């Protein structure tokens, strides 16, 4: 029988090192991708919840809705917003909350602070018409995650 002497020949060692480096590279790349995906998922959850809430606000009159309900027509007038409802607005559900609401009207911007809590926040903008003054405004919702 031929004796190779050393069990790990140079050839085998090189092959082993290459395989080891390959596995390390794959593990590093996978964990990097998983982290990126997790971050994207968390960001998109905040974005999704924020977009959903802002849409609910301008399209409904019950619960978190601030839209005007026309008693005569028996229907909600989407995007026609009652300013008084914004004053008393409050939203907190699990880790999500609304920190402030900004009403960017022509010449008279208005900010309504709703929470002192700190968190990771995004700003959602919707275009509305104010029922009382029939003035156009950009409704900004600062939506946060603790």
């Amino acid at each position, binding site marked *: 029988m031929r004796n190779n002497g050393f069990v790990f020949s140079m050839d085998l060692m090189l092959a082993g090192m290459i395989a080891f480096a390959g596995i390390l590279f794959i593990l590093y790349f*996978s964990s990097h991708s998983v982290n990126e995906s997790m971050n994207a998922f968390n960001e998109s959850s905040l974005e999704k919840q924020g977009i959903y809430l802002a849409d609910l606000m301008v399209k409904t009159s019950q619960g978190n809705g601030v839209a005007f309900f026309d008693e005569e027509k028996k229907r909600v007038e989407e995007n026609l917003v009652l300013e008084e409802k914004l004053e008393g607005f409050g939203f907190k559900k699990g880790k999500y909350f609304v920190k402030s609401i900004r009403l960017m009207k022509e010449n008279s911007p208005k900010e309504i602070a709703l929470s002192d809590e700190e968190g990771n926040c995004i700003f959602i903008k919707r275009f509305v018409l104010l029922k009382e003054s029939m003035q156009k405004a950009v409704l900004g919702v600062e939506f946060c995650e603790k």
Partner: protein
Amino acid sequence: MLYYSLEALIALLLVVSLVLMQQQSSFDKKGFSSIYLFQQENDLLKVWGLLESIDEKELVNDFNKMFAERNKSISINGRAFSFEGVGGKPVKSNASFNGFEIELIVYH
């Protein structure tokens, strides 16, 4: 004739799966942007439709105010106004009211 050894085939599969993983995560990041822009475009069209009267200048101002810093264009009765160039993936909405035929395009 091309010959792929087993190692080469495994390496290729690994590269393809890594590239696909990257594409998936970049898709996740863009997920809600088009829905959000579409909602904002519809807001403008609904509010304009609720007003008894509105002029072309107001339409353009509101559109600019709502989509500041974005590539966009508005077409009013066939006349197009573009702002900050045109590029990216378009989100389109259109409506007719008070004698206006309007098409909004915002790029993201």
